[in-house]
């Protein structure tokens, strides 16, 4: 799995994609109106056997070391979707920039379902 790497005088610092996915998913569920992180069939299967739902959040790092994140969401009923999506994008961007100093290119949100809160 590709890792974001930063060089310092003492050596290299690598951030695993799963760490980026973790930060993104935690920042996403912080927003009021987000019920949970969505997922596909594989991530659902992994969740069933006790693995964290990290596969659902897709992280891509391109050649220019810019990060692209796809976050699937389940939104609570009664909330405005574009507003929630905007707030999630902002929160994920802030959290990632604060914790990893990475350059975030895109945070793509896909609303998979609506559930009662």
């Amino acid at each position, binding site marked *: 799995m590709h890792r974001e790497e930063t060089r310092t005088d003492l050596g290299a610092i690598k951030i695993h994609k799963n760490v980026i996915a973790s930060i993104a998913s935690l920042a996403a569920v912080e927003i009021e109106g987000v019920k949970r992180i969505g997922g*596909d*069939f*594989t991530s659902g299967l992994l969740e069933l056997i006790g693995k964290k739902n990290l596969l659902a959040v897709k992280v891509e790092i391109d050649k220019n070391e810019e990060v*692209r*994140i796809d976050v699937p969401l389940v*939104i609570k*009923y*009664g*909330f*405005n*979707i*574009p*507003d929630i*999506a*905007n707030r999630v*994008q*902002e929160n994920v*961007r802030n959290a990632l920039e604060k914790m990893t100093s990475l350059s*975030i290119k*895109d*945070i*793509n*949100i*896909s*609303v*998979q*379902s*609506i*559930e*009662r809160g």
Partner: protein
Amino acid sequence: MRIFMVLGISFYAVVLIIIGIALMAFSLNLFEPLDINNLVLYLQSGINSRIIVGLSGFLLILISFSFAQLILGRFQREKTIAFATTSGEVTIALSAVEDLIKRLGGVIPEIKELRPDVIATKKGIVVDLRVILKSETNIPELTLRLQEITRSKIQEVLGIEEQVFVKIHVLKIVTAEDKDKKKRDAEKQEPGIPFAGYGRFGQ
């Protein structure tokens, strides 16, 4: 992703062609059932051949699984409403819009059941609603109200200005008698316990 698709389709085409040729050869008597028997026996005889057969089976399952997921994911991706923001793209699955509409069923007491089907077209969003209503409902008034609520809720929650067309199809009207009849039928079907009241007399 496209290359995986091409590989997957080619793989399935080759496998199906081989099966087809084998069946045709069998029907033309080009090989005997004994040949198949010998082949199976040969495959089962050595530990190496058994491992190869087992691994091939496992690989086939993996290929089928990933190919099915690829196709299903592709179909799922197509059924979305998308808009761009400064931070990236937001896509909303049409099934999420259907969930939203289903919740509206609880808001209107005259509706017994609501089955929505949402399609996104170039002209706008088309909502096909199939409803089961309770009796003594004014259908024109209710359907108009349902259309208004559906349209405004979609525009409010999705924050879109596109046109929303709401088609309503009343599937069934359930009367109170239907409910009572179902209850009575359920009670009738429950078997009575023999001697249920026996021994209670005089207690």
